[in-house]
């Protein structure tokens, strides 16, 4: 069960893409990604001296003729890639509902999962605090993943760090990790998140999803009693122009801090606005990070 935005057209476009990792990871199955493992791949890797027990089929007889030494040809093995997609399901992703932040994040996750599955990669989706799916292989897995994600309603969000640590602890193979969140949380929490994933030797990409309500909150209100959707904390606010301007500056500072950290950690970052078209997000900002090719 996929969301309505997954039209055949869009799926055809996704099938042309593939997940790219910046490093080679050992896979568990044969796949389309170059593995550090030498073996029976197509692509020549290097030579090594023949040792007893090597398959004589791999001896480069031409080189032997020229040098009178036995060398064995080595090839790079092509294996699948373990793709972990971590989706933030905290309450802030669903507020305000008309911003469809959660839906955007969910669709991005499913799009990337589809791309990976179509490349015979192994895909695991971790909806923080909700579920950690088993690895799925092949295009059919997208339906199960779609069903699982569509059943999730954003909520909670009080145990960001623990949720992420639990998700990281279940990673068995290194690979690519894609974190989709609004990243509107204390910077310390964010650091914990990425450290947890980096400890698992994952090639991480961060995708930030923001809605209109995150950029210009309480747009039509002069004063309001704002209630935090996650903690329930209430604050009285008067939103005049000064406050709105201050808010814009503070949001920019927060994002700048995030981006600096990610840059220093060599974690690509992409921003997706919930108002954007999904195709534009996938083909645009996400592709620009180098995650897709």
């Amino acid at each position, binding site marked *: 069960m996929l969301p309505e935005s997954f039209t055949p057209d869009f799926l055809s476009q996704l099938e042309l893409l593939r997940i790219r990792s910046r490093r080679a990871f050992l896979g568990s199955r044969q796949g389309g990604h170059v593995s550090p493992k030498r073996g029976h791949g197509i692509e020549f890797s290097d030579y090594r001296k023949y040792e007893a027990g090597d398959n004589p089929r791999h001896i480069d007889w031409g080189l032997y003729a020229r040098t009178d030494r036995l060398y064995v040809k080595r090839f790079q093995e092509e294996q699948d890639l373990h793709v972990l997609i971590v989706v933030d399901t905290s*309450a*802030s*992703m669903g*507020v*305000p509902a008309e911003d469809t*932040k959660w839906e955007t994040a969910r669709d991005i996750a499913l799009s990337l999962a589809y791309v990976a599955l179509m490349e015979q990669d192994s895909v695991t989706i971790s909806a923080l605090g909700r579920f950690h799916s088993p690895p799925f292989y092949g295009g059919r897995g997208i339906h199960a993943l779609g069903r699982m994600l569509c059943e999730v309603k954003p909520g909670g969000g009080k145990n960001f760090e623990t949720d992420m640590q639990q998700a990281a602890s279940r990673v068995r193979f290194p690979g690519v990790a894609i974190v989709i969140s*609004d990243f*509107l*949380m*204390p910077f310390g929490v964010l650091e914990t998140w990425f450290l947890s994933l980096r400890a698992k030797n994952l090639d991480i990409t961060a995708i930030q999803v923001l*809605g209109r*309500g*995150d950029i210009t*909150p*309480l747009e039509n*209100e*002069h*004063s*309001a*009693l*704002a*209630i*935090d*959707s*996650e*903690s329930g*904390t*209430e*604050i*009285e*606010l*008067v939103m005049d122009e000064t*406050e709105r301007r*201050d*808010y814009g500056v*503070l*949001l920019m500072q*927060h994002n700048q801090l995030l981006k600096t950290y990610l840059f220093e950690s060599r974690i690509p970052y992409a921003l997706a606005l919930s108002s954007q078209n999904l195709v534009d997000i996938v083909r645009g900002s996400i592709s620009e990070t180098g995650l897709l090719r």
Partner: protein
Amino acid sequence: MNLFGATFGFHWPWLLAGVPVLIGMLVYVYLRRGRGKRIIVGTLLILKELRRPVVARQKFMPPFRFFFELLVLILLMLGAAELYERKAEERTAIVIDNSLGMSARDSLGMGRDRLFDRAIAEAETTLRKLSSRAKVKLYETSPSLLSLSPDFEDPDTARERLKEVKVRYAADNLETSVLRLAGDASIEQVVIFSDRPAVSDANRPSSKLPSSKFRMVGVRLPSTKIENLALTRVSIMRDPLVEGRSQLKAGISSYASEPVQVRLLHEVLAAAGAPLVKMDEKTLTIPALGNETASFELRAGQASRVSLELAEHARDIRHDAIDEDNSAWITYQSSSMKILLVGQYAAQTLGLQQVPALHFDSWIPSDFERRAADAPYWQSDRAPAAIVFHRYVPPAFPPRNALFVLPPANNPLIAVGAEVHNAEITRWVSAHPLIAYLNLPVLNMPSLQPLPRLPWAQEIVSTTVGPALLAGELNTHRYAITGFEMFPYEGKNRPLLSILTLNMFRWLTDLPLESGFIQVHTPLKLEGTGWKAQYVGAANPAPQGREENGQTIFSFEAPGVVQLNPPSGAPVLQAVNFFNEQESNTLVLRELTLPAGDNASAEDRQTQHPLSALLAMVVLVLLGLEIIVLVLPKR
């Protein structure tokens, strides 16, 4: 409520009960205020940097503005409750009920104080309690509301003046007095001292509470039940059918809860200077709260006195609270009343000079038509008490009570039918006073002109051919119409018609034809000037007559027999009585209805210096300050 040397009050004090509720609402509103709309946002991560977060207002820590708004609210409530200030110079009316009923004494106690004495003592206490800056007017209610103080005076002077208040032979007149005082804007408070209870609030709708202007001080005697016996009427009954036979009838009322035996004494005054001579004595038993009539034969003399007292053996167990209503006087000759006869026949011809106590003037119709428009005549005292139109009908109904006897055909007012012989009576209103004592079925009407049915008149006697006797009131005058001839008046020779004639005149003049006395305070008009009057055998001061339009007018303040001396000629005696059942009734006291609050409040506002306008101004200034100091700087 005294505050800072001034006295304050509220017209609607119960509204103040709403102040705590409003304060509670203000606190609640304050707790909620400033929060604006409750909006759930994704996260306060950045928003909280703009303002300090508020977890919840668990402590009520009101800022200055709260107290400011509380002050405005309280001021508004004070305004709504109609706060007023009583000036230190409070003007009070002390009203003493000095009616006859206040002379009731108790059987208990050594001094046998009267209700009136207690009222004076209460008034004295009240006056003592008033501040020295208060101003007082002293009033007595009977016979009419009278201020004994020439102007507002200090309480001590008013206290001295209490000695001038005396019990009068008069009704209490409290209703009228209260109304008059309610309309007096110069008086802020009225304190009434009376035995009558004020109407309880439970009997009123809530919007009609008694005005705060009035305070009733109930004066009571120690006994719970005050019993009284009284003579309530006295009259001479002349037998119209037997010449010279007269009886004196005295009515006695008992306001006791048990039957009581009384002794009645009949005394006769032979002449003005002669002593009273005891003629007769009777003992009667009066039922509880009942009436009884005693009759005495009148034989000689000029005046009689009937007096009652408790029978000797009843004095220990029963009580007669008011002594002043135990005797009554009556004189045998009485003043005659003038009746105008308009018709072709003189009064003598119709035998009307035989009707006792009435004096007839005879006019022919043309005289009447000529003088009908003479307004000064009809308004003067020479105008007749009633008019008899005999076989004649004027162009319009006259401005007097009138009897129309056998109206002619084709008259402009009463369309009578054609003459019918030997009509039979079919129906009559037996309760009507016109046909009292009559055995109507034997009334013989040889000829009858049936009367029309008139919307304002009641059909008293009906016949097979139409109404024979009509009576009713039109424009406040009584009119009776007969379709048959009822004259000449022949006394006992035609008893049925004679009694009908006497009933007619009794009804038209609305007085007993021969009352034999006048009530206290009723003006007695005597033709001519120079009349002198003095009480016979009593120490009462000589009544002073007032001379107006060639008449001497006396008003007597006490019961008794008064000798009236004309400038020339023989003196005449006039009995004066005071009969008032309400004053004599000591068992059942009438409730006094005080003016409703909303009626009196309009007056109060004029005198009690309302502060609503001032409060409104203060509130406006405070709100203006709030805008300037608290609101504008934030913009």
